[in-house]
């Protein structure tokens, strides 16, 4: 029983991390219809900010990571994504793949191809006893951060003018433009939000593993993509749900797969979208009428 509770807490914590990633991906998708491969590199670069700012107080370093994530995301939009804004989604996807490759290899050349360790505050690696269940503090932090981020995002989207503009653009970009929403500003804002979400994930990943590496963004971004696919494209709630589901399944597979199959956990996790798409070709929350309109 204790073990089950323990595993469930682990699962939800991983699920919230995945939900944060999926949200970062889906914010861009809803506003400009682009699946952004470089989101993994936004995460990676934010994490490297912690490595570079290692001597400073941890809170300052985290602030640095946040600023890095936001600035990189806005810069990438300005330089690479704005010119292909009107291209079809395949072209945008390939463009973001190019940006991801460039950023990843710049870090590889400028820092090192090998992982670097980053010191994190001691309390993160400790655990708290809760009625016989030992919960790592990092999981509290992950759950708490996810809750705060979701609350902030909800406030931004539903309580501010900028959020209203973003939601309008997500509904119908051209119409929103005609009604006076400034496209450049809304898209830049979406990238800033996406970059901030990436920074949160980057910081959590560093706390979890204690290290950074140039390729650390690859698995997260694919987790985000798969979560969004499972949840149904362009739905914020679907992204959260898909991320949670994927994280819970990955975590439980890790806990309950037989020893001999454990190394293949990722194979099972990434086969999941196939299984779901067989049953629901447009994702869990995707519209059944996702076919092109006539």
């Amino acid at each position, binding site marked *: 029983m204790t073990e089950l509770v323990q595993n469930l807490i682990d699962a939800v914590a991983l699920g919230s991390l995945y939900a944060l990633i999926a949200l970062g991906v889906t914010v861009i998708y809803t506003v400009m219809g682009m699946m952004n491969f470089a989101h993994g590199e936004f995460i990676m670069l934010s994490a490297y900010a912690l490595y570079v700012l290692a001597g400073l107080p941890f809170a300052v370093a985290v602030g640095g990571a946040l600023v890095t994530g936001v600035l990189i995301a806005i810069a990438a939009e300005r330089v690479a994504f704005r010119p292909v804004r009107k291209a079809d989604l*395949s072209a945008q996807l390939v463009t973001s793949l*190019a940006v991801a490759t460039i950023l990843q290899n710049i870090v590889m050349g400028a820092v090192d191809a090998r992982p670097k360790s980053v010191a994190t505050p001691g309390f993160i690696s400790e655990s708290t006893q809760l009625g016989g269940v030992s919960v790592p503090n990092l999981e509290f932090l992950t759950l708490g951060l996810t809750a705060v981020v979701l609350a902030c995002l909800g406030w931004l989207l539903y309580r501010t003018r900028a959020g209203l503009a973003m939601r309008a653009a997500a509904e119908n970009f051209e119409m929103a433009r005609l009604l006076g929403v400034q496209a450049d500003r809304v898209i830049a804002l979406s990238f800033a939000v996406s970059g901030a979400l990436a920074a949160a994930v980057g910081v959590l990943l560093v706390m979890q593993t204690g290290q950074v590496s140039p390729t650390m963004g690859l698995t997260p971004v694919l987790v985000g993509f798969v979560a969004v696919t499972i949840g149904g494209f362009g739905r914020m709630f679907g992204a959260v749900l898909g991320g949670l589901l994927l994280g819970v399944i990955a975590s439980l597979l890790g806990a309950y797969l037989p020893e001999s199959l454990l190394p293949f956990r990722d194979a099972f996790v990434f086969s999941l979208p196939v299984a779901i798409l067989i049953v629901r070709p447009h994702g869990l929350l995707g519209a059944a009428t996702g076919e092109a309109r006539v």
Partner: protein
Amino acid sequence: MSSGRLHSPALIAVSLLVPLALVALTMAVGANGTPALQGTVTTILCNLIIVLGLQVFIGNSGVYSFGQLGFASAGAYVAALLTLPATFAALQTPALPHLVASAQLGPLLSTLIAAAACGVLAAVVGLPLMRTSTLAIPISTFAFLIVIYNVLANWDRISGGSSGLVSIPRTTGIASAGLWAGAAVVAALAFKWSARGYRLQATREDEVAARSLGIGVTRERLIAFALSGVLCGIGGALAAHQSGVLIPTTFYFGATVTTVTMLVVGGARSVFGAVLGTITVSTVNEVLRNVEGGAHLLGVVSVGRTPGLAAIGVGLILLATMIAMPDGLTGGREAGGLSRGPRLRAMRPILGSTTNGAVEPARAEPAGGSALCAEGVSVAFGGLRVLRGVDLTLRRGEALGLIGPNGAGKTTLVNVLSGFLTPDTGAVSLDGVDVGGRSPARLARAGLTRTFQAALPFPHLSVLESVAVGAMGVGVGRRQAVAVATGVLDRLGMREQAASRAGSLPPASQRLLGVARALATGPRYLLLDEPAAGLSEIEGEELVAILRGVLEDFGCGVLLIEHEMSVVMSLCPQVQVIDDGVTLRVGSPAEVQADPAVVEAYLGSSYLAAASA
């Protein structure tokens, strides 16, 4: 007789020979070089086969797959395991079944088995994936790449795990890689120019229009996906036998970005582009790789070790291409079409004598009643009830006009009849057979075709190709399809434009092209959704004149949707008026015009005033 061809012999010859010559040139550069250069050239040729594999799927379908390198990986491992010397096999892959471990096949047989295995794997993987959307395919294929990597990296006792395999016999040389690459060029072009290839290209150009012509999108994508898997498997197998070592990351993220870049830089839609892109990007990559390790540029500038430089270069090339030149170096054209510009005027001779009779519907008259019937069709979008129990009967050989004001439900009714929309209640039958729930493609193959309010052209296909795709869509073979298309174009007076790109036509011609495409399916029932919409009055009248002459010849039942009263009145002996989702009146134009309810609901007082004036 020159009909039966989509391309002039000269275009075919140039399109085949130029990429083959590039392959031969690459081989020649390597053959006279140092052993290192020979190795590099062999690797480029292996990559070319993989890129051609990408072209077959991505280029023709317009849908990106990031999983094709997974098939290259699978092919490489299959071929390596089948050829590994027994002593090494026992050491590296202890759990390998004895049959495989002791096989020690030759290079040709192992490559063929790898190709077949990858074809089967791609078909099995593609079966669920191809059902999903254009956006889900890139992501789920990427997931597949990770699955393959994860399995290979952890299945230690079969695959050698993350340290991989060594001592694979190095049997691939420039000659064998070059021959395979040449064969891959021919295969990719043959596929592109086959009826299957054209059907798939039509789905790339406009998915909705393709479905209306009888093309099953999932099926066509799946076939190309499997063929692409075969080519990638061959490329992987040859590459493993070139380098002699194989690790799970050989064909993973980095290789995926590199090969996709090669395809995109050359121009994904063309086989020539795949060849050109592979050679260009490989060359740049090779130069940067040398600089990466520290080198002297031009003997003067000294460059230190700069890891990642080659990959950054590839990324920058890809980014620059996507921003500045999304159609790639070739603009997506084959070598034979390059010099002629978009209109390809010089290719005109492809159209020979009129193929009389080719345009008649090939199908036998069905036994049941010959009519398209809708009974009690109701459709609601949310709370909005667009159709409320509409009946409609379209008899074979009859022209029925469907009129009504904007928002009356005309297009919704056509969507229901053509299978694009499932009604909430009501039944649709075709020649006495209930066809409720059938896909648009199946209905087209059963003899029911439609056009759309927008022209929905296939912009990168020629006019002749666009119309031939209509016939291919319902299963007519390539040769016969061209004969049908030629006949239809002759009949519609579009022969002059046969070689033009569909996307370059003026709007009125694109509209007519949509009708031609639909006629090429040999429909028994044809639904024309506002064929004159968006055209000027003169253009509309011309279109109507052409239609009037044509429709009688083709002998199909025609449902003509219009809100221009005059168009319908002049073409249709029978008219059905709907308004606000219900039928107001069915009758001759005179009867309809005389009905006060129709006049009030639809024609309005201004029409009466105009009519009496």
